[in-house]
């Protein structure tokens, strides 16, 4: 428990603080190419402030509420200024947090069901293949998951390049020689989601495949005797049997997809799509690290995951309670 909670507590504490006021002084700076006026931090004056409270200034929720996060003031102003939902929506997507949320939620709610459906279909298909073929089939179906996400995304990134194999095929199919997946926001979103499904479907597949091995053969036999078609067997025997597994997969996938990160980095897609995880990475990756901002986004991510999972968790808890 300590291992889990200590880092979270430290992140929460960090997010409530911002850095000290930095005392700035005008100075002359000289380098190879000449001298000019610039500014620097007055270390002596700032050191005193630092020694007083090493955590920084207590800021309460201000970091959460500022423009780079929940942007309460900006949202309020936009709400009063705009008169249509459409307009309001497009203005909101200009704010970094809502832009990231827009993509993250779309990604989560498109990829999760597709992964579950595709995983299930592959599992049923593999399960009905002859025994000799099953081994190789399972191996190939699992490949996308075995490849490191960054590498897998990079491979796809090169393939969809305007001169790559998929990119050229798309141009041919669309009859537009200037079509470029990397230049268009909708196509980039689709690409990221296709990658997400490609990468995560094996996980759903292997869980379902394991589940299929435990389907009672007697029940299936009985269904067959009753004249149930293959579809009816799946609909009335297999799906109800695998339902608890579906809850498990949905839980894992919602969590994973909400933290979508690697594809955005390896597709260099940040001009088109950002996510909360990417925002944290971006805050920490600049020349000047923005710890408080990253901490606040992290806490918001945790809250987001908790909200997303709450329906599933409540359901599981109820099931458990009933028993």
């Amino acid at each position, binding site marked *: 428990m300590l291992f889990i909670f200590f880092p979270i507590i430290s992140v929460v504490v960090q997010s409530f603080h911002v850095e000290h006021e930095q005392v700035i002084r005008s100075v002359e700076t000289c380098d190879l190419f000449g001298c000019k006026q610039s500014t620097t931090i007055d270390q002596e004056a700032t050191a005193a402030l630092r020694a007083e409270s090493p955590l920084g200034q207590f800021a309460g929720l201000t970091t959460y509420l500022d423009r780079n996060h929940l942007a309460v003031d900006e949202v309020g102003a936009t709400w009063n200024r705009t008169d249509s939902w459409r307009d309001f929506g497009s203005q909101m997507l200009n704010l970094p947090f809502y832009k990231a949320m827009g993509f993250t939620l779309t990604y989560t709610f498109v990829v999760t069901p597709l992964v579950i459906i595709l995983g299930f279909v592959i599992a049923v298909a593999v399960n009905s293949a002859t025994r000799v073929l099953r081994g190789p089939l399972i191996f190939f179906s699992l490949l996308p998951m075995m490849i490191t996400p960054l590498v897998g995304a990079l491979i796809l990134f090169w393939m969809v390049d305007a001169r790559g194999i998929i990119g050229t095929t798309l141009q041919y199919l669309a009859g537009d020689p200037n079509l470029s997946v990397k230049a268009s926001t909708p196509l980039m979103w689709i690409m990221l989601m296709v990658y997400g499904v490609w990468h995560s479907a094996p996980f759903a597949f292997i869980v379902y495949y394991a589940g299929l091995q435990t389907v009672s053969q007697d029940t299936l036999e009985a269904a067959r005797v009753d004249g149930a078609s293959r579809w009816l067997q799946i609909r009335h025997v297999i799906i109800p049997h695998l339902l608890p597994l579906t809850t498990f997969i949905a839980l894992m996938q919602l969590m994973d997809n909400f933290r979508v990160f690697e594809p955005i980095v390896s597709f260099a897609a940040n001009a088109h799509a950002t996510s909360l995880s990417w925002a944290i990475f971006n805050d920490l990756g600049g020349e000047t690290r*923005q710890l408080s901002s990253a901490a606040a986004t992290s806490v918001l991510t945790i809250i987001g995951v908790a909200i997303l999972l709450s329906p599933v968790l409540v359901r599981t808890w109820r099931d458990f309670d009933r028993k």
Partner: protein
Amino acid sequence: MFLKKVALASALSITAGAAFAACEISGNVSIVGNEFPAIHTVANGAAACTGGEVKANLTADHQKINLAGMQGNPAEYTSAIIANSSIVALMNEDVIRPLDDLVAAYGQDIPKNQLITIDGKIMAVAFMANAQTLAYRKDVLEEIGVEVPTTYEEVLEAAEKIRAAGISQYPVGGAYAAGWNLAEEFVNMYIGHGGEFYVPGSAEVAINNEQGVAALNMMKALTEYMNPDFLTHDSNATGAEMEAGNVMMMNMWGSRMGNLMDDEGAEEQVYSNITVGGPLTVGGGTTPASTLWWDGWTVAKNISDEDAVATFLAMKNGTSPAILNEETMSQAVWMIEGYTPAPVNDGVFAAIAAGTTSYPMLPYQGLLHTALGDNLSDFLLGKESAEQALADVEAAYTTAAKEKGFLQ
């Protein structure tokens, strides 16, 4: 091939160091820095010193570890090799020491122009320079009959002619990848238009003005002639486009010209015609739309004076004329006596001669750079106006600067 070069360079510089075994230190040295051949040469030069242990941790992720590694007491790293943009991150946290007394005692022979002084105190010693300048295809410009462009307006005209002649659909290149690269291009273009980033003497940003809009409009005009994927092209990718023979003109780093002009990765027709030009100006201005960069070394604050002296001597040895030989000469534009520039370095020298300004060495410039990198792509994609994009940058920067305590 690359590895071979590095290995050879290291071997050569170690022997060179041994030949100049005048470097005797009594203390331990630990260097952290970026990972490319020139930095290896410096680290090897430092390692040639005898009498104490010299370690080097060279990695592309050096900026993620150098601050943390210097905050302890004693610090893990006694020296960080940094550039003018990254020295401020170390100065902001007060982890590097002024070098005045060390220079007075041991460094009288270091040329004065290599000493980086801030507020009258020597904070770093520079050893190499870099700048973005024009790279162009000599043969293509001859074919369409235009002079080598000296302004971005001329680049646009030449691009139109190249396209009209059917030579290349997307003849202009540039490192426009959203993020750091895109922000750097804006910084260049804004300086070229004579813009000032801040209200003088304060951390208050002021880029949403005529120059800012003009800079963005010029960038947009250039992207019309770029591969539509430009927002994913960093300097590697756009360099590859030039080597593939698609890009005929681009603004490129001096340190990467060698790769473009060598016989690897391109056909003879392409690499033999790639030529380095000077920095470009824009909008009738005289200041080039480019920034000068230097790489230099620092000495950590939280270490014993003994180790500081050892570090100073080792790093001085690592950047002394002794490290220059046939192999290392072409690795960078060295700011070291005895360096003779090769044609690949013409651009950087032209940039220095043309009075290019150096990248702003300000405590809060990193925050503005991040904000620029995040918010300009919407304009280039045609989703919002230039004014809106600049307003977004200002708002994002102001918020971040408040979180970091630069603004109240």
